[in-house]
């Protein structure tokens, strides 16, 4: 019975989406990012249009775009002075934090997005980090998550790009998000939200596949799946290189 109900709701979903007054039609410059040996960051262009059958409402249309990398647990440590030396004293294990997170918006976030809507859709990066705080020793969780965001922002791994989305005639929008060169592979989630007067009126989600290809893929797989072979290979290459260099230098000297 429950399965039947689930099926029923599944069938209903497209209808619901269509029931939104304004709908997003999205284009991506690339829905796949290939990490090759020469990979040095990549700019993703997200652009689209708003499809509507009703007249444009009076409140201005705002657009928020987020790109989120794969998440994983992370340990945040804090140094404290003990006996005159600085040591890692307290730590917090964050249950899930994305490796990359960018938020771009057409205006200041505080103006284009209501707090309650942010809670609901988890748009800003602090909502994307989950701390069910298992290991808080001393200090409170907030300081640690703030530090995590600060460090990641300095690394360019977390980006807040206010006013970076261009909206034309309440219909066309575009933005560009720079993926850094220290990119981790996985499925990156791109979300687009349309807001009016701070409330989300429509949203759309798609994924960008980031993966290593070619030599990078081969070496990564070898290291993961055939670790002993990879290890021996590394050592053999090192020995041969060392021996080779000395042989070459000897030849040069003898000449």
């Amino acid at each position: 019975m429950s399965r039947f109900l689930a099926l029923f709701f599944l069938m209903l979903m497209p209808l619901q989406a269509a029931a939104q007054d304004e709908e997003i039609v999205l284009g991506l410059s690339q829905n796949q990012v290939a990490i090759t040996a020469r990979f040095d960051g990549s700019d993703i262009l997200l652009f689209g249009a708003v499809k509507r059958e009703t007249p444009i409402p009076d409140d201005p249309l705002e657009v928020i775009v987020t790109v989120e990398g794969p998440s994983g647990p992370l340990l945040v440590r804090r140094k404290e002075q003990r006996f005159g030396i600085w040591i890692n004293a307290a730590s917090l294990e964050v249950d899930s934090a994305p490796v990359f997170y960018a938020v771009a918006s057409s205006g200041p976030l505080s103006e284009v997005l209501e707090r309650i809507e942010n809670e609901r859709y988890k748009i800003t990066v602090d909502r994307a980090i989950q701390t069910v705080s298992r290991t808080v020793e001393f200090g409170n969780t907030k300081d640690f998550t703030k530090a995590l965001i600060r460090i990641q922002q300095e690394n360019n791994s977390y980006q807040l790009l206010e006013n970076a989305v261009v909206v034309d005639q309440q219909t066309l929008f575009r933005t560009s998000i720079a993926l850094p060169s220290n990119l981790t592979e996985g499925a990156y989630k791109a979300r687009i939200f349309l807001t009016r007067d701070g409330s989300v009126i429509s949203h759309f989600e798609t994924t960008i596949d980031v993966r290593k290809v070619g030599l990078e893929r081969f070496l990564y797989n070898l290291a993961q799946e055939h670790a002993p072979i990879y290890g021996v290979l590394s050592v053999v290459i090192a020995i041969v290189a060392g021996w080779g260099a000395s042989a070459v230098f000897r030849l040069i000297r003898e000449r």
Partner: protein
Amino acid sequence: MQRSMLDYPAWVELGTDMNIYLPIAEVSVNAFLLLGLGGIVGILSGIFGVGGGFLITPLLFFVGIPPAVAVATSANQIVASSVSGLMAHLKRKTVDLKMGYVLLVGGLIGSGAGVVVFNYLRSLGQVDLMVRLCYVVFLGIIGALMFVESLRAIQRARKAGGVMPKKRKQRNWIHALPFKMRFRASSLYISAIPPLIVGFAVGLLAAIMGVGGGFIMVPAMIYILGMPTKVVVGTSLFQIIFVAGFTTLLHAITNNTVDLPLALFLLIGGVIGAQVGTSIGVKLRAEMLRVLLALLVLSVCGKIALELLIEPSELYSLAQAGAEG
């Protein structure tokens, strides 16, 4: 990827063009930078017989390589530069292979024990601090003793008008031990026990501190075993190859953290540097070599001590969850 050419001046375009993406470290780094780093460490390795792990690992952190990858990959690079340096020393016959084997036996047992100690410390959650304190204490003592001793040796040599005073054969408890062996290249006739213990101690420390241990091994060979300075460097390199090779394998199998492309760029620089370093080392006088090594050891010690004593600008740091127990 399609970056417009107008955004950067031409030389920057050339610079970023030489970037390579490292598959295990998952960062993109300039290839010339890596060659240079490898070269510097190779030169030190050739001159002093140290692996250079204590230097290359922090440098790699600085470039943005994750710590686990930096430690494992530098071990691999050390294998290459040590082989390169050893070959040069073998040709000059400045390696005591017999002593090397004895040290190695002790060293391998020591690193096995060290891994156990390391895992125990890790379960306590303060492995980082222990390693740093180990560094400061050992490097401080070794560096200071060596510095004072070698300065005195230089002064003595000056007073004697450049003629080295004949070294008095030290007759102490070491010579009363059983299992005597003859080490021809070092012109020593001593018990096998002290080299075994030295090897064990260095292996233990090396495994805990994540380095080859050359900078402890070299002074120990000179001052505890009484080996002549000229064979010390080559013999140290000989034993480092095995320790570093073993470490590389261990890291590759248990943590999958050896980055082959990173190692390749470092070791190309490293093997060339080691050859250059060896020819510099041969031209230096024994006392000068010891003074310089002492200064090197003291400066590394000072740097780590400062990091512990000065308030860091960022109190927080990120790590892979599960990295600490």
